[in-house]
């Protein structure tokens, strides 16, 4: 019996933190986690990973490449589904993400440099054709058209404990990579030429960033679907940018905002189900909550600006 049945927003939060405390003090085991809790944990870990990777993707102006990735991983997923037969296998997911990531980068490079096509058109061509190919593969070989729809929308309610392990693994991977190589990523984003001179390998940093994005995208597709993964990647970062101009603070605030939005979305989803009897898409909710969060941050920054100007005028 789901302990969150019929809970409204605030009682959800209260119960959640109560049970979190029990979990941390050892009185509750992982096997006893409710589906809602698993959702929260998975989404929080995914949000943090996405915010970490997304910060540098946004700074490197590679957001549209991430969009490209989010479409092309369908091919990787289809292939790994065909080869390994399941989608929870970490090996399979790793293969899928690496294959699609590399394929995207190589093909886009080929179109831009060898075939001399506009950069934007190359990106557009690569991801639409690979996505179409992915849908075709999925239809031809699995007869499971739902895979295609799920890949795009995600299926939050289908999350299980295995997904939690995966999300946690992703969280570890991205936070460790970023912590270790923060300096290198920063300089590569700000001044790639200086990075090259200082021996910080900007090219490798770029590739690493893209591969991290691919892995996170593949990890995310089950929970929120590939398109909404983009919201997690870019939204919290843009909102955080409005609030701070220090890079380290930016990354932390982005991760916090992303996690907050995920939690609120799950709580809201449960609330609406309990209070109104309607089941709304949690992934859609997350995106909308991120949008509202962005609007709030915008207002806050404008307010801060107005106050600073007011103070300035007062001084004069």
């Amino acid at each position, binding site marked *: 019996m789901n302990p969150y049945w019929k809970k409204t927003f605030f009682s959800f939060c209260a119960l959640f933190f109560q049970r979190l405390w029990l979990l941390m003090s050892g009185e509750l085991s992982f096997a006893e986690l409710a589906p809602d809790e698993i959702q929260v944990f998975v989404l929080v870990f995914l949000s943090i990973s996405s915010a970490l990777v997304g910060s540098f993707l946004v700074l490197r102006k590679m957001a549209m490449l991430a969009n490209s990735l989010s479409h092309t991983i369908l091919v990787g997923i289809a292939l790994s589904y065909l080869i390994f037969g399941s989608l929870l296998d970490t090996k399979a997911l790793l293969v899928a993400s690496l294959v699609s990531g590399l394929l995207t980068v190589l093909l886009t490079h080929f179109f831009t*440099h060898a075939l001399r096509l506009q950069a934007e058109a190359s990106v557009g061509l690569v991801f639409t054709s690979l996505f179409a190919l992915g849908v075709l593969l999925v239809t031809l070989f699995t007869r499971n058209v739902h895979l295609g729809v799920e890949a795009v929308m995600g299926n939050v309610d289908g999350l299980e404990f295995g997904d939690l392990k995966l999300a946690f693994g992703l969280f570890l991977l991205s936070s460790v990579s970023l912590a270790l190589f923060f300096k*290198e990523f920063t*300089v590569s984003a*700000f*001044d790639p*030429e200086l990075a090259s*001179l*200082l021996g910080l390998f900007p090219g490798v940093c770029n590739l690493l960033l893209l591969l991290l994005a691919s892995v996170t995208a593949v990890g995310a597709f089950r929970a929120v679907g590939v398109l909404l993964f983009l919201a997690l990647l870019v939204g919290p970062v843009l909102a955080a940018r409005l609030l*701070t*101009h220090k890079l380290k603070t930016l990354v932390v605030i982005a991760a916090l905002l992303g996690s907050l939005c995920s939690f609120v979305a799950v709580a809201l989803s449960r609330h609406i189900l309990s209070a109104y009897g309607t089941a709304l898409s949690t992934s859609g909710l997350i995106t909308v909550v991120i949008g509202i969060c962005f609007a709030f941050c915008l207002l806050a920054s404008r307010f801060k600006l107005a106050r600073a100007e007011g103070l300035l005028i007062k001084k004069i």
Partner: protein
Amino acid sequence: MSGYAIEVKELSVSYGKTPVLWDIHFSIPSGVRVCIVGPNGAGKSSLLKTLLGIVPSLSGEIKLLGNSLKEVKSKMAYIPQRSSIDWDFPATVLDVVLMGTYGRLGFFKWPGKAEKEAAFAALEKVGMAAFCNRQISELSGGQQQRVFFARALVHEAELYFMDEPFAGIDLATEKALAALLNELKEEGKTLLITHHDLSTVRDYYDWVMFLNTCLIAYGPTEKVFTLENIQRAYGQSAHLLTQAKKLTENRTSGF
């Protein structure tokens, strides 16, 4: 040891199929301020980037302070063109200057007290110490250039490569930077700087290099900065070079 700060032999560089530099030879002693002049597209920035190892060369030999590039990377400082930087990046003035210390820190180490003190000292020298927590997007052109100078100073380099440092800055900053360049020269450092304003070449530089895909002339300013060389670099003959380059690019791309 040859005693030259920079020695280049038969250097050729291409960007893809476009020839950028053809058979460049020169030797520059240490302790001079050298400016590189030439029309747009002459390859001035490319020359700097090739010497720094940022752009690969097709052929040729480069010796910096008598050694190969890899051995002396820590002794070189680079100031890129201001227009190539994204000034909306979330960074403060201090952050940017500290980046100059990342090279000697290596992987996995964070800048500590020593690095921060070096950064402050460099900012003092360029007169930007009061701005250390200011966001770089709020700086004027001259201030941005000074911050980049401070970043280069923190390197404690022997060779300084600068790309159009005097472009688009106010007069006060220009004078301050020119004085700094002189100071560096007095300390025995070698400076290689691309420059666009022919009227100030005599005042700020000891040596001048006329570059237009091929090296037209170089040497002490009094001897080399002549009307004849200026005409060779910028005149009608230069136009032929542009045409020849375009033809080469087309041919080698299969057009």
